[in-house]
Every structure is written in structure tokens, then in C-alpha cells.
């Protein structure tokens, strides 16, 4: 016998959980099928940065629209998600870097946005007095921030429970058949619903492939490190033009260091592991900005699997092959910030309402087979 629902979510990361909560609050009977455990992959490994700074132009309106949702998230979910409107700062460590940031700011302004702002050295050190003296200036977004991924997942999983979502862990989806309703096949039983959301993260392309839609996604093991708690020294989330870095300090004092370095992927076991030489490079970037961190102890490093698409943009799109199927995957290392908005966009697609931010750049059918893409020398 097949169990029915109004909406089935495939994948229990942030995208799936947040979508399930919204759908259930709308009065739908929602079933969430998670292959492993809730939040097991990118979502719990995440650095939790809520950043509109230095976004791809196509993602700027989404990132901006997500900010008020983060400010409301704790009230909305009835639990602290550790959100801090800390601001985000990308520093220039040399003249060439500063020139690039100025170009970037001009380009963003030309698109009609005002959130990015160039600050000189004095204003920068006023914002972050602990920064190393060689920094020359920065690109700043004052109303960006960060949240705590673990608390967010925990809050969402409670909210899902409270809204009546049936959350099933250890249910891997292995088949999907068109029809009304759609049929979702797992390793242990089949389910039906007129609406199915593909929120399978780095494996979302495998779900899309079940209905013949091809999306180039590379599962990537993004690395993070964290120190023991140290005295407060930094307010904003810091990055730099001179190397990969994202650095922030939690309320408890832990310094969370990442920036997009890619570790080993063990595809068979679905795990990532940090590469020590790259952890080392990442930490050296952090200590260049904040030399006193040399004396902090690194207590943990990890690498979480995230799906990176060929163009670095997510898929947020109705299926073009099967009606009732909606894709939201491949967030390419920056989906945390977007997650509360993505759930809205998905439900707007489901209800055929106009999207609250433009989603045409994220169509599932935008990729040509690599061989057919034109390459320019």
C-alpha cells in the first residue's frame, strides 16, 4: 500500500525542513523523507554566514529578501537560531585588492543596489579594531549577519514536528514516477503526493535524473575549522580579497574559520574530510588578518558535502518534465543565507503565485550538455 500526502519533501537539510514547515503551516499534510538523519550534510556543516556581500548579481535580490526573514526567524520558529546582524566585511590587503573592491561596488551600484559600501582604513579600523594594520579598506554590508546552523536545524526540526510534518529518517528515495499523484519510491516503501520537492542537496541532480533532467553538480567537501572560545575581538563576518577566508566569532567565543577550501570527497560513504595542507592555508589567512589568533587552539576541523553546480548558482525551479515536481538544490556553498526565502519561493511555485524574488536565472533546464556549450578562447 502507498501512503499519501499533500506534499512530499525529499531531503532534510535546511531547504527541505524550511519548506516542510511552511507547507504544513499552510495546512498541507507533509511528509519529509531523509536518506540519513536531519541536517546530516551541508546544513549542519555550514558556516552559517548570512551574506549579501559580494554575491553573484542573480542572487543579490534573493539574499536581500532573505535578510528580514532571518531577523524574524527566532520569533517565527519560537526558538533561538543564533542570528546576529553583525555585518559582513571583505577587506583589501593591497592596492590591487582595493581597486577590485571599488570596481565591484561600482558594478553593484550600477545594478541599482545600495547595500555594498566601500570604507577606507580609518572607518575599517573603527569597525574592527583588532584587524592587522596592513589592511587598506574594505567592502562592507552593514545589515548582513550570521546564524548558528545547528540551532537553526534544531529549531526547524521542532517547528516541523509542531506543524505536524511527518519526518522520516533513514528513507532514501530511489525512484520517482510521473502521474497524478506523483509516486515516490524509497528503499522501504512507496509514497504518493501531487507535489514533490527535491531538496536533496548535493544529490539533487540524482533525483532530477530520475525524471530525465540533467544538472551538472559536483559534490564538494567544504572545509571548516573552529577554535576554543577566546575573548571577543571581532564583530562582523570577515573575508579578504587576498585568499579564501570567512571568519566569525560565536557568542560563546569560538572562532569559526572557513572560506571555501575543498577537502576529500568519499562519494561512496557520502563523507568529506578536510585536507590538512588546505586547513593550514586557511588558518594562515585568518592569522594574517588577526595575528593574535596564532595563540588560539584549533579544537575541530570538518568538511561537509555541498552540491556545486557548473555555474555556481542553485536550481530553484519547477521541473520541465514532470508536473508537480519542484527542484531546490545545488546551492553551491552559499545556500544557508537563502534558505528561509527558498522555502517561500518553492511554495510560490507550488501555488502558482508570483515569486517574491526573480527565479528565472535558476531554471533546471539552463544547462547544456558540456560538449554543446560554446567555449571561447
Amino acid at each position, binding site marked *: 500500500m502507498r501512503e499519501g500526502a499533500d506534499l512530499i519533501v525529499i531531503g532534510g537539510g535546511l531547504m527541505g525542513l524550511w519548506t516542510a514547515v511552511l507547507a504544513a503551516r499552510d495546512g498541507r499534510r507533509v511528509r519529509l523523507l531523509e536518506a540519513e538523519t536531519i541536517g546530516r550534510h551541508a546544513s549542519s556543516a555550514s558556516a552559517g554566514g548570512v551574506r549579501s556581500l559580494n554575491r553573484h548579481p542573480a542572487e543579490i535580490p534573493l539574499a536581500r529578501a532573505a535578510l528580514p526573514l532571518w531577523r524574524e526567524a527566532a520569533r517565527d520558529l519560537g526558538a533561538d537560531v543564533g542570528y546576529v546582524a553583525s555585518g559582513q566585511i571583505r577587506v583589501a590587503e593591497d592596492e590591487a585588492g582595493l581597486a577590485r573592491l571599488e570596481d565591484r561596488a561600482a558594478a553593484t551600484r550600477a545594478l541599482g543596489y545600495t547595500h555594498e559600501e566601500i570604507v577606507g582604513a580609518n572607518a575599517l579600523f573603527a569597525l574592527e579594531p583588532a584587524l592587522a594594520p596592513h589592511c587598506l579598506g574594505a567592502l562592507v554590508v552593514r545589515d548582513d549577519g550570521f546564524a548558528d546552523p545547528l540551532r537553526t536545524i534544531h529549531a526547524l526540526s521542532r517547528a516541523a514536528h509542531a506543524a505536524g510534518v511527518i519526518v522520516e529518517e533513514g528513507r532514501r528515495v530511489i525512484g520517482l514516477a510521473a502521474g497524478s499523484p506523483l509516486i515516490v519510491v524509497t528503499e522501504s516503501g512507496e509514497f504518493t503526493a501531487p507535489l514533490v520537492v527535491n531538496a536533496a542537496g548535493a544529490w539533487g541532480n540524482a533525483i532530477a535524473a530520475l525524471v530525465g533532467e540533467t544538472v551538472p553538480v559536483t559534490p564538494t567537501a567544504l572545509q571548516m575549522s573552529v577554535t576554543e572560545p577566546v575573548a571577543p575581538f571581532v564583530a562582523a563576518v570577515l573575508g579578504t580579497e587576498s585568499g579564501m577566508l570567512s571568519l566569525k566569532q560565536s557568542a560563546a567565543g569560538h572562532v569559526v574559520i572557513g572560506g571555501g577550501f575543498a577537502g576529500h570527497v*568519499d562519494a561512496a560513504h557520502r563523507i568529506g574530510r578536510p585536507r590538512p*595542507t588546505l586547513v*593550514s592555508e586557511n588558518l*594562515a589567512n585568518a*592569522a594574517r588578518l588577526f595575528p593574535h589568533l596564532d595563540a588560539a587552539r*584549533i*579544537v*575541530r*576541523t570538518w568538511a561537509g558535502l555541498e552540491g556545486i553546480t557548473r555555474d555556481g548558482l542553485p536550481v530553484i525551479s519547477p521541473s520541465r518534465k514532470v508536473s508537480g515536481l519542484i527542484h531546490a538544490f545545488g546551492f553551491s556553498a552559499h545556500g544557508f543565507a537563502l534558505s528561509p526565502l527558498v522555502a517561500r519561493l518553492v511554495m510560490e511555485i507550488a501555488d502558482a503565485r508570483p515569486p517574491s524574488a526573480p527565479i528565472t536565472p535558476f531554471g533546471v533546464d539552463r544547462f547544456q550538455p558540456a560538449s554543446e556549450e560554446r567555449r571561447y578562447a
Partner: protein
Amino acid sequence: MKAVDVLIVGAGPAGLSAAAVTGAAGLSTLVIDEQAAPGGQIWRAAEAVGADPVRHAALGSSYRGAMAAIAIARQHARFATESEVVDVSPDRDVLWFDKTARTLHQTRARAILVATGAMERPVPFPGWTLPGVTGVGALQIALKQGGMVPDGPVVLAGQGPLLLLVAQQLAAFGVPIAATLDVASAFPSRTALGALPGAIGADPGLVAKGAALAARRFLSGSAYRDIRDLEAVGAGRIEAVRFRAAGETVTIPTTRLAVHDGVIPNTQLTRLLGLAHRWIDGQAAFAPQVDADGLSSRENVWVAGDGAGIGGAERAAAQGAATARAICRALGTIPAAGDAPRGTGARTFVDRLYAPLPVSHFAADDTLLCRCESVTFGDVRRVIADGATGPNRVKTATRCGMGPCQGRICGANLTRLVAEETGRAPRDVGALRIRPPLKPLLLADYATLAATDSA
């Protein structure tokens, strides 16, 4: 990156005897141990103990065979002591930190032998994190390492052969024992006695030694049996120990309480490596799954000694040598012949005689389970009631196991608590995922890897 044929983690009886075999067979062998000198737990600081008449007189009998094992291994292998293995990649790149030179190294090994031994099972009870409260093993480490004798009478609580041994060693150092608090009732259980004939058959010497130790302790004065509701009380550090025995509450003033409930395999590295593990009911602990040769579920990663399941020092040494012979064959060399390790007959008796206490035996809801992140038994119970299904869900919901010890202290107890609360078997509940580095590293030390490694 540097390369060796065989990299052995742990210079206890297992690692030492293995190094002698692989080194003598012509394989380049590196032994890494975080202690200042080879010897492992039983032979900790062996060379220093040998040179110190006071320590030697009090501890000497445990160190029989140590000097020879260390000398032979030193002859055949290179040693990096005072060095911690902090990470190992799937293709056997070993990341290790030399604490003396303050340098981080990466060494690629054709084969890895994990001989990381055992750790004392942490026993949570109200007040167990107060200064002055330690494990019995920690007390012994101080004796062995520097002949450091506690500055006053000691209360010993719990059960197990190591407790008996340390009681005897403390006495040999002239340390007064204020009281021994035994968690067992006076007589061994029927299941334990059932295993006794097997144990005598398998290892009569060990059983006799144990009986002698136990008898000597029973003669040593103030002993309580079948104690309950153990608690350390004090402001800032322990001032007294309180418990119930024979229906009465007893309070004994003390500045030192040492507790013990057996030793368990140290699985930090084998978990980090992602090896398959099995649950050993009698020891209430996980151990890596190995075949008869000591080969784990991962190619060319081997495990020997107490780290593969508690069997004692003699067996660890024999296993180390036998596993080393298998490593030689796997790497295409011919080792010298040797005997297979003996069975574990006596162990079953010991495990049953000192059957591990339930994890919540002494713990109240507000007792700490994870001391790094201050997570209590009650915190864990609450998130389980909220739907957390396993140790890793509990970890993300409470931060249990996310502190500097990497879950070393709370991990095994967390598995047992989740099992207790959900009515599932510990083997199904599983274990915390272990993240590198196994020991915290200064950012400055980690950040120099790229520079030192390419040199």
C-alpha cells in the same frame, strides 16, 4: 611528504613488539607516541622507573620485560615520542605533531598499525568534575611518571583489576587509603562464577594474581560494599565523599577520590579512520572490527592490543607481533616466525566479575555527561524526548562531544545513555563521529604545515 613502510601509533606492549617484527624484516618503521618515552600504559616511563630505586621498588613487578621490549624495538624502528597523531587520511597520510619541536608533520605510510591501547572508562556521578576527583588510572599515571604521591589519604571507589593493583601500588608508596568503596556486593555473581573454571584453565596465573590482590585489599581496613548514590561534595574542590551503604548515608572527609570501572578500548583514532566497529557486551564498549590477523575494515590499516578489545598487556604484546607478521606478508616481506596469541579465556571471567555499571548508576539529571561543553544527563534526555535518535543528533542539539576532548570522555557514555533512553541496543545506537585534530593544536602550529611540509 615523507614516507615509511609501517607507521605504528602507540608504543605500548603491542606497538613495541610489532615494531621489532616489522623493523627486523627490513620495513622502515616509525613508532609515534604522545608520551615522553616508550612503554604505553603498563610500562609508562619505563626507563625512568628503572633508574629510580623508590619507584622501581614500588612498581617494578608491572615492568617485567619492559626494558628488553623497548631496547629491541629501538634497535629496529625510529621513535617519535612526545608526538600526537592528530589525523589520518583515507590514503594513509598521517598528520602528527611533535610537541617538543612544535612542528606538524605529514607522513605517508604503506601500512598503519593502530596500537593506541585502552583508556579508563569515565564514571559520571554528582561532583565527578571537582578538582581532587580523578580516575584510578590517573592517580597511577602520576605515580609512574614522577613518583608523585598524593598529599593525603585517598578514597578509592568502583571496581576492577586496575583498582586492586593501584591500591597495592599506593600502599607500596606508603600512601594511606582512607576507605575503599566497592560497587559490588560481597560475593561474585553466579554468571561470573560460571566463567571461573574457563578462566583458570586459560590463565591460572592471572586468576591467582587477581585473587591475591583482592584478598590483600580486603585486609586493608575501612571497606564498604554495594555502595550507592556516590557523590563528591565540596566548594571549588572535593572536601568529602558521600554515599549509601547498608542502608545508611556515610560521609568521609577527603581531598582525593579516585574512581574506576574498568578500561575500554581507545577508539578515537579508529573512529576517525571510519573503521567498522563491534560492540562488546561484556566490556560495554565498542572496539574496531578486525580479522584474525588484526586487519581492519580498511585496506592496510591494522589494529592490535587493548585498542582492539581489552585483553591485557601480555596478549597485547603477542597480538602486536602476530599482526606485524601479517603486515610484513601484506607488504611482501617475510617476517621471522612466531607464536599465535593465546585466547581470551580469563578475560570473560574478569568482565563478568566486574560487569560494568549502567551509565546512569550514580548519575542524577543534573550530573555532567560532557564536561567540555557542560552538558548534563538531563539535557541529553530532553533532546532524546524531543526526537534526537542517536549520538550525533544529540551532539548537534546540545554540543555534547564538541569540546576540546573530541568526545573522548563522553562518547562511550553517550552511546550507552542513548541506548538506555531509547531501549535500543548500543550497537544500533552507534557512536559520535570524531573530527580531526584528535588533540587541539595551536593555530600557529597548524598554520605552518604547508611551510614545514614542503621543506
